[in-house]
């Protein structure tokens, strides 16, 4: 584990946020498997240290853009379970009044500009948010989350060019989980991904995305530099998704072996690693961690029950919110 100069409270919050993401996803997966959730969803489990390490270095004024695999970003940026589960089930009390669902969940109150169902689709939005900050003299930073698959989209190269030309306060965070949907990343990505950002004169970093402190430490430095006008930056976070491309992608040995999945889960799990660190450093006892886990599970099951019982939006809402007043 990398060392970060933070206090106990910060460490416990990071653990808690990672555990909340894992618990949220386990519940969302159950909702799918029990046919209670409309549509499909894309699980973030395994990548928790990325979202939490980054978002813990941000304030509510800082913006993020998220992806189709976005529940982790949403939780890490401060969202509540209740409004999130309501959104996943298409209920009126969801963050988007049930109109967005899993792939469009947004939580503006915490600076989450929304998940995006077009791979790489939010790269322009994130860079534009940074342009606005610079134009209006505001000191917030925008983090653009995307996966390794999105690095194949041309939009990224267009916006990196402008971000670098205009020194915009944006951090491109590539969650490299090794798979571009159902295809190994090595089959779709030529050369080096960090070198692509470097070609624009953007400082690029590669970090162990399973090490929450390493991610957080690096992000804190880059956020501080962005605020001083040193942006943009690129981070490639090496991570792994435990589930398939989406919850319905269950038989996947044709592209990924069970042995490989087991190895990541047993030996590189970000939550297990951080938990043993907390215990060995005397920051928390096993009992305290178990108590935290129990509380999170209770919180999640209560939110699920609430969302299941919650109302759908009235049909009169179908043509509301097409245009803003």
């Amino acid at each position, binding site marked *: 584990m990398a060392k970060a100069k933070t206090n106990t409270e910060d460490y416990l919050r990071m653990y808690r946020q990672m555990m909340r993401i894992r618990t949220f996803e386990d519940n969302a997966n159950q909702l799918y498997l029990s046919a209670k959730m409309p549509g499909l969803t894309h699980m973030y489990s395994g990548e928790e240290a990325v979202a939490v390490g980054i978002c813990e270095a941000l304030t509510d004024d800082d*913006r993020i*853009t998220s992806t189709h695999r976005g529940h982790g970003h949403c939780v890490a940026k401060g969202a509540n379970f209740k409004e999130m589960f309501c959104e996943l089930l298409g209920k009126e009390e*969801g*963050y*988007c*009044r*049930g*109109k*967005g669902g899993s792939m*469009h969940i*947004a939580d*503006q109150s915490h600076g989450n*500009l*929304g998940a*995006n169902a*077009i791979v790489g*689709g*939010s*790269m*322009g*939005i*994130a*860079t*534009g*948010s*940074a*342009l*606005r*900050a610079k*134009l*209006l003299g505001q000191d917030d930073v*925008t983090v653009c989350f995307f996966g390794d698959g999105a690095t194949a989209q*041309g*939009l990224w190269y*267009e*916006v990196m*060019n*402008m971000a670098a*030309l205009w020194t915009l306060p944006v951090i491109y965070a590539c969650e490299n989980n090794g798979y571009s949907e159902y295809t190994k990343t090595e089959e779709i990505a030529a050369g080096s991904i960090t070198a692509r950002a470097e070609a624009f004169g953007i400082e690029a970093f590669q970090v162990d995305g399973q090490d929450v402190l390493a991610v957080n430490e690096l992000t804190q430095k880059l956020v501080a530099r962005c605020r001083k006008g040193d942006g943009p930056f690129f981070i490639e976070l090496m991570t792994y998704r435990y589930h398939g491309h989406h919850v319905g992608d269950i038989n996947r040995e044709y592209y990924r072996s069970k042995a490989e999945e087991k190895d990541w889960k047993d030996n590189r799990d970000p939550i297990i690693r951080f938990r043993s660190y907390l215990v060995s450093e005397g920051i928390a006892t096993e009992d305290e961690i178990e108590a935290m886990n129990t509380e999170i599970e209770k919180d999640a099951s209560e939110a699920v029950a609430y969302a299941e019982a919650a109302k759908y939006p009235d049909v009169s809402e179908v043509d*509301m*919110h*097409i*245009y*803003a*007043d």
Partner: protein
Amino acid sequence: MREITLSQAVNEAIAEEMRRDRTVFLMGEDVAEAGTPFKVLSGLVEEFGTERVIDTPIAEPGFVGLAVGAAMTGARPIVDLMFGDFIYLVMDQLCNQAAKQHYMSGGKLSVPMVLRTNMGATRRSAAQHSQSLQAIVAHIPGLKVAMPSSAYEAKGLMKTAIRDNNPVVIFEDKLMYQDKAPVPEEEFLIPFGEAHIKRDGSDITLIATSSMVQVAEKAADLLSKEGIEAEVIDPRTIVPLDEAALIESVKKTSRAIVIDEGHQSYGVTSEIASRLNEKAFYHLDTPVIRMGAMDVPVPFSPALEDITVPTPDRVAETARKLCSGELIHAA
């Protein structure tokens, strides 16, 4: 009243709004010192500086994407798309991102941006610099579409667009940039969704957009000499559409031709004709006739290009046939 060109009108509208609201900024290819290839934006960079009049790389999806993000977080970008044909390059940013943010977020996010671009054939610019793609944009819920028909509309609609809290696409006819019209010195705005009756008439309604309004007015002049009084209506915005004004006119005249420079099939003319059929059917004496551009890529050769778009003679000819009953049983 003083007369200014459509180009000056657009320039004035943008300058006034940039003075009024410091969150308004302009970005696009060659918008600063060059002032665009049509020189519409000349002088703005001198007043507002390169921070607010931003020359971008040639990367349409990229800079339209930036405009969406800037708009979602508190700025009011005006993004300049050098040719309307380049809309095809920015479809994801415009139609999947800008158009849907407000709805997908349940009303929490909004995208107050203006995309100003152009349209119009007969400039000998061939198939990729001559298209009129307003129907494609108008098809997408969440986008508004304005089509100024003179300098007066260009100014009033631009100012309204900049203050609107939604993505608005403005199509200017590139052949009209030097056309002059009376434009008041004092501030004015033109509300969206209010059609303008350009000419009163009782025998037939000519509903026309953008430069086709001039075509319709010329046709009306020709018809008037023959004793046919045509009413010319300019919807000014096709989204929102002032359906009530169009229906009202047709109730009076019982006949209508819809003229727009986009391709005729699945186009603006088809949409308006359908609405009149659905909502004014019992007031109609003849079918509503569509007159769009031919369903062909815009050809380069003047001999070919000129026949692809509606002309005053052809509009008058069609109106004459409708009024004489010849087209009542048209195939």
